[in-house]
């Protein structure tokens, strides 16, 4: 399980960098879907922006295309990916 410090950092990053000004970062569930209905409702342009932010903030390159899909599923999958990439 990723640390709550990391998931909180990711949530704060999403809210500030994607201009989700109406959202409280803490109200985002760890496993809520980032894309599509029933979650944050982000789109492919946001995915590009998140990939850039993850590389800038955590020094980790997010793969592209189909490989990226499971990583971008939720805040917790993103956090797991970052932790694994940092330790490996």
């Amino acid at each position: 399980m990723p640390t709550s410090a990391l998931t909180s950092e990711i949530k704060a990053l999403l809210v500030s960098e994607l201009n989700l000004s109406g959202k409280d970062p803490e109200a985002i569930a760890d496993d809520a879907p980032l894309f599509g209905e029933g979650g944050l409702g982000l789109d492919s342009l946001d995915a590009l922006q998140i990939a850039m932010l993850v590389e800038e903030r955590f020094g980790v390159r997010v793969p592209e295309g189909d490989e990226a899909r499971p990583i971008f599923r939720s805040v917790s999958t993103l956090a797991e990916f970052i932790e694994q990439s940092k330790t490996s």
Partner: protein
Amino acid sequence: MTIVVTGVGAVTALGRTAPESFDGIVRGERGFRELTLFDPGEARSKIVAEVRSVSAPADPRLSRTSELALIAAREALAQAGIDPKTRRVGLVLGGTTAGMFETESLLATLLSTTETSQQRDAALSRMLNHPLSAPTDRLVKELGPFARARSISSACSSGANAIAVAGTWLELGFVDAVLCGAADSLCRVILSGFSALGALDPEGARPFDARRRGLTLGEGAGMLVLERAGEHARARAICTLLGWASRSEAHHITNPEATGEAPHAAMLAALERAGLGPGDIDYVNAHGTGTPLNDPMETRALARLFGDDLKRVRVSSQKGMIGHTLAAAGAIEAVITALAIERGVVPPTGGLEQPDAECAALRHVTRSESRPIGAAISSSFGFGGMDAALVLGSRDRAAPARGKKRSVVVTGISAVTPAGIFTGTDVADLPERADGGTAVTFPEGALDPERARRLDRSSRIGALACREALASWAPSSGAKPTGVVLGSAFGAVDATAEFMRRLRDKGVRMVRPADFPSLVPSSPAGYVSIYLGLQGPALVVADLAASGECALAQAAELIAAGDVEHMCAGAVEERSAIVEQVLSLVFGGVSAGSARGEGGAALALATADSGAPALARLGDVMSFAEAAAADALASLPPPPEGAIVLLGSASAAALVARSRWSACSTILAPAICGGHEAAGSIAIAVAAAKVARGDAPAALFVGTARGWGYAGTVWRAGRERTT
């Protein structure tokens, strides 16, 4: 009235003239090489379609974009045998990058504080290259005088829309001929932006191919001379321009709407204007960028248009040969289509070997074919979902007669200023309410935070102004879609500087993809069309301090020519530290008595015969070279008792002084909204509101900028008066 193309010019990676480029295309050449113009860094692709035959202008104050435009313009004028000095000629130039290549490296410098003041002043003076209107200014200087000139942007459909605007000018009888087209040079902002969007194919674009991964950026210019088809022009005609139309997807700033509804609607409307049906079309010059999303979407739009006939119509894209030349693409592709019709040669799609299953329904052309083309469509789609289609025909074709010029009424008014947001006739109170503030405050909840989250400051001002203008009355859902024209003199200069600083300090991989669309000058119109769901034509126009007047003129022309029935027209300007420095350097300080502010305003417009409830009626909106101002203003009707004058800038007062309206009470817009380039739109909004409320029976608005002037009148609704 039929319009003929009597001259064409093009500069592309495949040639310095239109025939040279066309011959290369017919031979199947691909102009893709490694970039030499600047260091591409870690960009996703270093392969571009660069114009290596054109070197940097010797004078550092000139831009590469304007150099490309000038070469193509000279070619087109020479072929048409037209000299703007001896005939009434108009100029319409589309663009996205303008002087970006020259100014982008300066922008990051301007943010730093370590440079000496001389270095900063030198950098700032070169910023005059930057505005969208700068290449137009250069063409006017080198080739003019022109009777009227316009700078427009609708991102990658700018070239097609420039040709459409030129067509309306001929129909409305403003000029005898129009030089029109677009130009764009490669630059760091564009390469890194498209790279960040993951839109570049590292191997070079392959439109419609199963292996395609994106587009290849190109640069160049395409210019055409259009004339009315008199006997003399007909004899020199290359082909005819029969129809045009544009529609907005109102969907997403970078991703196309997958069903292709808006491109389909644009093609259908362009055919209707041409008096043709899909069965008359022999060839489609597709937008065909080679991105994974564009090509299937375009296939769906074409399948909808042609139905069972789809396999008959030959389709090709040259973006795998000359790259995606952005604004220039629509103009260069119109030139290619014109030559294809003239020569009876269907040009191929370079790079296409294995059509993708989703694009397989089309009749692709992989090698040029000799066969007559009676009529053809050229399509262009832009960022923000701004889609345009042109219909070109063989030289002997005739377009159907058009109805008379439509008159225009005002159905809504708004102003967004530091003193607050004003709607309808309340805008008339603005002169008394001005508080000397310089920044617009957005009230809590004024815009939906979720849907507006990507909108930059100018686009937010535009969305608010247009929404308020449309608040009092909006056309029913069955009506033809509403369009939007916004004036924006400088675009997002500070955001571009910030983007360049990241590029310089952190490299191509670290630029922000979501910020890139705002750097394209058309983005306020694109964002407003998306935010408000406006599916008609969307354009940005630029004419420095007269950008507001220019936008109103543009919108009124589109209505008068029957291209659209409902329009939102206004201007936006955001505060910019860099623009303030540039202006104070050039003009030696901001004009006295008015701090530079920000804001915007909009009018909702409709055709008088649409049955829309009118707040006021618009007289002709004139656009003229300042040298011809006396004649233009002399044509105004005399002012009725109590009429007022609104000035977009202090310099416009000199024009009014020589007119019959000189004794009228005058309001100077910058004095009530702060000095900025959208002040003209606020002058117009106040003029309309004062007339609508009955404060004045009529109002004249006048604006000027660097050699050009605009003037128009507003009258009480219902009162018949021709101006």
